[in-house]
């Protein structure tokens, strides 16, 4: 018996899931905006502690990873499995590079004694404490999404190799790509809010 595939249903389901993700991060963005409005001066001071170069580098990495993701889907549409796998691998590597940068950035912050409940942070103004609380919560939740994305894309790579994802059936890869683009878009908003607006 032939397996039934509901491509449209699958895509609609993915969009609904992505909407729930937008609501999740949207709530945090609202929280950020409210506190920023209340503690304008403290947010200004705290944001100056973040490294713009790290933030910019990670933005470029994620933008490029979205390109390789789209190229991977374009390749499988043409039936080019090897090329699709290569672009997918590049996407995974860029995702790991993003996480590596985040690790170095967070380690430096922890080294400087800036982490939730640290004596150094508690000695600062309450707005600065809130800024870093939001910074760790929002970039941490985003980083978790990147990590999950890297895992999903690795499984997709395996499916491309074993032929489960192919020219005539690539909805799994397309939905994974949608998720990856969302993760990229969320970062595009996190970047200016935390790193650029001082």
């Amino acid at each position: 018996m032939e397996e039934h595939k509901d491509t449209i249903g699958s895509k609609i389901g993915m969009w609904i899931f992505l909407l729930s993700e937008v609501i999740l991060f949207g709530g945090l963005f609202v929280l950020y905006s409210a506190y920023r409005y209340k503690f304008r001066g403290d947010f200004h001071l705290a944001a100056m502690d973040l490294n713009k170069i790290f933030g910019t580098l990670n933005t470029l990495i994620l933008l490029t990873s979205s390109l390789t993701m789209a190229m991977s889907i374009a390749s499988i549409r043409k039936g080019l499995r090897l090329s699709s796998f290569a672009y997918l691998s590049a996407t995974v590597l860029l995702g790991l590079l993003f996480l590596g940068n985040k690790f170095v950035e967070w380690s430096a912050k922890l080294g400087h004694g800036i982490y939730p409940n640290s004596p150094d942070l508690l000695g600062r103004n309450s707005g600065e404490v809130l800024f870093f609380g939001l910074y760790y919560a929002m970039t941490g939740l985003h980083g978790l999404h990147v990590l999950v994305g890297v895992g999903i894309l690795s499984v997709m790579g395996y499916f491309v190799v074993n032929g489960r994802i192919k020219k005539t059936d690539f909805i799994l890869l397309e939905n994974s790509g949608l998720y990856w683009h969302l993760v990229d878009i969320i970062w595009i908003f996190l970047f200016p809010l935390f790193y650029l607006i001082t």
Partner: protein
Amino acid sequence: MEQRDDFQRATVRTYVYVWLGLLMLTGLTVSAAGMDLGQLGVLVALLIAGV
């Protein structure tokens, strides 16, 4: 078939153009952040990010 190849080539070209455009907008956002725009800074940064 030839027509389809042209279409696929055009798609890949579009992706690369979009990518280059986004890189330029990132540069623009970082440069705009360096300017003192006062309260407008938040609006400008988010507008460019929104694009």
